[in-house]
């Protein structure tokens, strides 16, 4: 009985030691991963700031105005003016869809229909 108990406790010590080392290594790995992630986040932040600056630079009003002037033939963009506003009842209704009119009898074929 005592030998069994002794063996069991020895096994328990070995097991807990293994578990503790295992947890420790896993923690170290996780911490390394967190460090890497943090570095990535930092780089992403920097890249984001750069892209925001670039976006702001490309969207600067002077450039947009020049582009709108250059592409006037294609886009027809004009500065917004008071006379561009209108009431709802000044907007024309969309034209009615073109209906095909037929009064004569016509032949109907089932050619090309999926076979039952």
């Amino acid at each position, binding site marked *: 009985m005592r030998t069994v108990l002794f063996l069991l406790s020895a096994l328990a010590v070995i097991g807990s030691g293994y578990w503790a080392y295992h947890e420790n290594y896993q923690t170290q790995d996780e911490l390394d991963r967190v460090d890497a992630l943090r570095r990535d986040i930092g780089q992403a932040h920097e890249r984001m700031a*750069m892209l925001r600056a670039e976006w*702001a630079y490309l969207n600067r009003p002077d450039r947009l105005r020049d582009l709108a002037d250059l592409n006037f033939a294609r886009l027809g963009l004009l500065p*917004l003016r008071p006379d561009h506003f209108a009431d709802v009842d000044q907007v024309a209704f969309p034209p009615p869809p073109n209906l095909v009119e037929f009064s004569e009898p016509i032949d109907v074929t089932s050619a090309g229909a999926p076979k039952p």
Partner: protein
Amino acid sequence: MNRTPLRPLARVLEAREKGENPDNIEKENRRLRHEEMRDTSRLRAEGRLLVLGVMFFCAFGVIGARMGTIAASEAEEPRAAATGSPVVTSRADIVDRKGRVLATNMSTYSLYAHPQQMIEPDRAAQELGRIFPDIDVPALAARFNDPKRKFAWVRRSISPEQRQAVHDIGEPGLLFGPREMRLYPNGAIASHILGGTRFGVEGVHSAEIVGSAGLEKFMDERLTDTKRDGAPLELSIDLTVQAVSEEVLDAGMKLLNAKGAASVLMDVKTGEVISLVSLPDFDPNDRPNPLTEGNASDSPLFNRAVQGVYELGSAFKIFTAAQAMQLGLVNPNTVIDTKPPMKVGGFRIGEFQNKNYGELTVEEVIVKSSNRGTGKMALAIGVARQQEFLRNLGFFDPTPLEIVEAKGGKPLLPKKWTDLSAVTISYGHGISTSPLHLAAGYAAIANGGRAVEPTLLKQNGPQMGMQIMDPQSAAAARLMLRKVVTEGTASFGEVPGYHVGGKTGTADKPKERGGGYYDDKVIATFATIFPAHDPKYALVVTLDEPVETSGEKPRRTAGWTAVPVAAEMIGRIAPLLGLRPEFKRGQLETIVQTSN
């Protein structure tokens, strides 16, 4: 354990035979047993003490060793602790009211040299001179060849292309350090508001960015506050409106041959400055140096809208009329005799082009812009009350705008405020204020009589400032301003749909060296509120020395110069501000038949 009996029979019998007391044997044995017991318990106690001592020694030893290692080792951040966001060390961005970037940071590189590591210092200097044309090559070569020098700056910040070019020189003594640079992506737009930055304390690995002018300097602490986690600073400026205002004002300035121009657009309830333009302007990314000689106000760095104090002329008349109505001295239909002569303090008060308007109602005094009419109202108001009113409107102090230059815009007031001063000030002469002051004053009329302080920061609600005139007087004043546009001096100011109301002001420029006024140099101002029946915005447009040359003789009055520019500006910016034009039916598009 076998215990020795206290009274062993053999010895008791032996003692009885000898006639001794057998109790002595028991006593002796008891003594021996007690001694034995004492010895064992002492031994046990000593053992326990030893164990305890060792334990304490180990515990304190561990603590001491830990303290020692902590004290001796390098500090390191806890890796496992869950920090929310890393500490933000860079300067906060500045964004407009809709979140568009006005100022941000960009990481670039600085370029420095370690002359002792250089292989070919002369060639390196020459190559650098090719990359950076403004570099002084002989001076740089001399610094590279100086044996005592261990370190030399070459460039504070360089672009990635320049960095590659420097790499291609292949000189091991040229080194790069990381650098943050302040970037203003919109170029010259809002340059006078933003100001500029420079490098403060510089190291090889980083440099501090400090504001050198404008908002950047005023808000330095807020922008570098790490507690705010890099949250951008939101301004009341609207980038689109600002850009359009600059475009229109620039075109107007060139068309009218003006040497400078300024405009201020303000929300009348919140005091938010939506756009603030001063021309000529500059690129804050490459801030020019201040002028070392001549007049500082000729520099593009000079902010005409805030720093420039000018006599703004007749635009002031509405304040006199509003106060006179507020005090119950007049109503819009009170008739005032404006016939000459009118003399105050021995000084003759004249009209524009020596006109004689005869008898005018108060409303017509404003519409026709009669100096004598407003002068008479000012005399009725009196000096003390006029001063108090103007002080409440903010005309006595520099504007509290959040840029460092605002402190420089201190109004010029007469040293002795006589009756004559009261009369001239009533039509805007003898008092010099910035266009921003005027916009704040008009905003008070527009919002129903509450004083507002102009601000550049986005606000959440209206400023409930001091009530300095009752809503009825303010409404009557607004009606007069509207009539100036519909039937008075500012007829070019009509923008269909927006019911513009405003007052022109044309003031001769005083000579810099004193001694009167120029005949042919004016400051033309148009101060407006729109829409006049329910004003949302106040706009002031000021042109410096404009002249309109389409007629037979040059015209300089505000009605011909500042007013058309302001009207064009309102037509462009009001739709952008989300104001819906209100047209009467049939007003929109009409064809009028004409013949020659």
